[in-house]
């Protein structure tokens, strides 16, 4: 008898909790109509940033590629020429790809980058209908105007 | 560009050493005594006389302060910059010389081609630090107030044929 009362009470307690939350604001959002404000330093999609003078920060050193634990980054360097000065110094990334399917957003690439070129922004809406579309190419990753991705183009490394 | 006389003298020098390459330094002095400096062509000629690659001759020429790849002024001023002289103020002496001669940064020879100033490696007279060699005269210890008179005295000299005195092209280098 005592046991049955105990069971009934615990059920009642559970229902009470449900009842209490029925009148509270939900923690979930009505995505995609509503989007969550993320902390500034949360890690989402990559950007390749530029210096204030418009030159690319990336020098194609490939440190991001070797540090990446899921081998999601591919870099192909090339040499700057006077007619085609892409970055400061002698070397630039002729090709830069991030495979978003592989990326685990650990941010090691950002940490390894000696010029602060690759940064992880707050954009987390990374979905696609095929695999090809989720390999982000250099054109997709590079910001068009310095500072466009929300990172100060004058920041020191 | 070397005269037959100089070439012969270099060949004679080679005989004095068990390995002919050892005669390279005196040979370069002979060549410099004749031309006044050692341009690329002369280095090549000397290299050919020694069956050496010109890179090796060039390496020797650039190593020593007493060989010049560019034409020098009439008078040569070697001021020692090595440790004994440096500790006793050769830096100031060199700076004063530069100012007096009106040498711009990076310049070695004055515009009127009268003086060439070389901040030189050890000139082997540490007891007289800070010291210098003006043409072939050893001067030291130098004080900053002497500099004007040193320049005046040097002007009266004949100028340098070559930094090594008394070179005899007939017999090869004197030593």
């Amino acid at each position: 008898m005592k046991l049955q009362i105990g069971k009934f009470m615990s059920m009642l307690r559970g229902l009470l909790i449900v009842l209490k939350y029925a009148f509270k604001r939900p923690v979930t959002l009505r995505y995609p109509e509503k989007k969550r404000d993320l902390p500034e330093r949360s890690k989402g999609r990559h950007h390749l940033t530029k210096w204030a003078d418009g030159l690319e920060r990336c020098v194609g050193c490939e440190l991001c590629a070797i540090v990446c634990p899921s081998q999601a980054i591919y870099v192909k360097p090339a040499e700057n020429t006077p007619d085609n000065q892409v970055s400061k110094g002698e070397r630039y990334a002729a090709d830069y790809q991030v495979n978003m399917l592989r990326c685990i957003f650990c941010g090691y690439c950002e940490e390894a980058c000696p010029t602060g070129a690759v940064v992880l922004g707050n954009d987390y809406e990374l979905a696609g209908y095929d695999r090809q579309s989720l390999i982000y190419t250099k054109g997709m990753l590079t910001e068009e105007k310095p500072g466009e991705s929300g990172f100060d183009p004058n920041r020191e490394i | 560009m070397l005269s037959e006389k100089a070439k012969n003298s270099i060949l004679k020098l080679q005989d004095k050493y068990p390995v002919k390459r050892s005669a390279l330094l005196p040979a370069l002095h002979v060549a410099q005594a004749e031309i006044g400096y050692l341009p690329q062509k002369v280095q090549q000629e000397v290299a050919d006389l020694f069956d050496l690659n010109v890179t090796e001759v060039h390496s020797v020429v650039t190593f020593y302060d007493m060989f010049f790849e560019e034409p020098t002024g009439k008078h040569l001023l070697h001021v020692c910059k090595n440790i004994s002289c440096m500790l006793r103020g050769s830096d100031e002496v060199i700076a004063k010389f530069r100012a007096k001669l009106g040498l711009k940064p990076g310049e070695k020879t004055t515009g009127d081609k009268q003086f060439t100033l070389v901040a030189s490696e050890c000139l082997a007279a540490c007891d007289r630090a800070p010291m210098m060699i003006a043409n072939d005269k050893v001067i030291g210890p130098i004080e900053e107030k002497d500099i004007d008179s040193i320049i005046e005295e040097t002007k009266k000299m004949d100028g340098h044929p070559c930094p090594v005195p008394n070179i005899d092209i007939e017999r090869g280098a004197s030593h």
Partner: protein
Amino acid sequence: MSTETKNKQSENIKQEMINLTIDGQVVSTPKGSTVYQAAQQLGIDIPIFCYQDRMPALGACRMCLVEVEKMPKLAASCSQGAMEGMVVHTKSKKAEDGRKSIIEFLLINHPLDCPICDKGGECPLQDNTLDYGSGISRFVEDKRKLEKKTALGPLLIVDQERCIACARCTRFGEIVAGDDALKLKDRGFRTEIGTPNDQPVESKFIGNTIQMCPVGALTSQVYRFRARPWDNDTVESTCTLCAVGCNMKVDTRDNEILRVRSVENRDVNDIWMCDKGFFGYEHVNDDNRIKTPLIRRNGELVPAGWEEVLELIANKFKEVKASPKVGALGGSPLTVEENYFFQKLFREVVESPNVDARVGLSQQDKDQEAIPAGTEISLGEIESLDNVLVLGSDLTETFPVIWLRLKQGMNNGAKVVVTGHHQTEVSPHSNKEIIHAPGEEFAVLDQLEKEVLPTLKGKSALFIGEQYLKSTSRRKILSTLLKWKKQNPELSLNILEGTGNDLGARFAGMHPAIGPAGSDAKQTGLSSSDMLIQASKEPWDLFYVAGANPAAKVPAPLWDQIREKTKFLVVQDLFLTKTAEEADVVLPTLSFIEKGGHVINIEGRIQEIRAAKSAPEGLLSDAEIFTLIAQRLGTTLILDKEFSEHLKVERLPFKVPTQLEEISASTQLEEIKGEQLRLSLSQKLFDHGTRVQYSPAIEQLVKEPTISIHPEEAINRLLKEGDLVVVESEQGTLKGTLKVTEAVAKATVVIPEGFPELSVAQLGMKLSNATAVIVKKG
């Protein structure tokens, strides 16, 4: 001199051992070795920069500092001799602090631009800084600013800021290559490496310095900013661009060859390679390669499918079966297996005995040839020789790495006597040199027999090269040398001739008189020159050319006749050569980097080549093509078990007969009449052969070919340097620019082979050294 005496000393006391303690472990090491070497024996790692175990220690960088008890200061272990009872600490506080300071000093003027430096990821300076450096620098002042990139020639880029003045590269040029290509300039903190006025480096071995540089000061222009070491897929293979057969690593990324590095093999190339090996792979990536089979329709070569061309060739083979007018030419760039299939296809399927891999000049029959190419000693043994006679061989141009090994032998005390028709890069290093006109070989041999032969003590070797071998008196010369061998049993005979896989082709049986594995051919066929001469006179049914360019090897009018009389010409090659342009069917094929198999080098060593990248789409290897053709004719080509057993040995035996019998019909040297000079054919490492032509980097190293004569001959003929001259032989003429140089013997004219713009083949089919020619103003 000093190294010589040092070596003599170390020989005398070789057996004496001394004991010392390093980090608490006792080690016994031969007297004369250094602390570093003793530590290596124990497997103790000491960081180094300037020390390179192929060269004497220098002690320039001080990276290898260790603490030796009872010594007041830290000692550089690379140059500190090991002594009895020595107690060494490599990991004590004092030693580690010392090394930390050295790293700090070295980095003071190092730009630390690792992210853009090509050495990054495989840089000893990076590694040692990580392992032994302090991690922080106390140097806050400005670093020195120097020239960031100076191109010294088409291969090398120097970054003066990164140089730590370890002198590895300059000492390589001085000690190993003997060319003094790079030198230290200036002194003290202003020291730079380079050449006078940054002129291009004059070296055939500059790739080695790129590989040896412990920092990113010397980098390759070809590999510049292409990849990091971790991007590359590496395959070990063998270089087939000359007959030395250096072991190499091929680095590829995204199925593209990025660079070639040497692999240590003490028996062959040690750790060296020549620039042709380092950069000659570039033709593989070239866009001019043939991409599909081509077939001649209405006089034009047009692309066709494999099915069609193979069917066509198979049908032609059926038509010409057992005809005496069918020939197979070429095979030097092919593997042993492919050559085996090639000759089998012709001997057994087409039933034609006319197979020959030797396309070009002076093919001697077996009697004239007497002894084929090969070496008695292995290439590794060259370093321990006491006496070497180099007879008529231009080592740096034909067997470049053999020269490096010989130079090491000279550093170890070997005496070298050189003879030849002209001076070579070996000349300044030789102890005695005889320059003589072609045809005077016997006088020179007599002189050597009297003056040099009696003085030879210890291990001695004869290296005989193409100047003597491409001669009508080859057999007589070799017979003289065999007599020397009888007198001095320690004298080895080494015949240096040929290129690529010539030995492999011969071993596979691509020779009119020799079958596979050295057996006698069942039916002797025609040699390639005999085939071509015959084809120029009467109709010829079919030529099948693989990896050869006969059109460039015979006089142009003769080739026109041959082409006219040949009913069907098949060419199998990488590029559209002159022969391919005139073929009826052209088959594209694979380069040595895209296929596997075996090759045989000059010492008869059987080495493997491996595919470093996948084959370009739609291309088949030579072996596949031969098999597919045979299939269509109802035969399956397989490698006989018996033959493949032969490929399992390390080195083929090189049999030297004890003596050669005189052949009565030995040819007499033609008399020189009036103005005539004697011809000497020379070889160049960087010529205008197909492979160099399509390798952009080394193509720039090719020097304009010239016709060279001695100044006296020039004066007699009123000629001067740079004149346009005509060389006339009985069979043809050749136009070219004259070079007047004392390096050439009197009464001699030296003309290089391998240049289409100065095609010595125009002088006739059966040319040999000492052929009489006239040189006059053109």
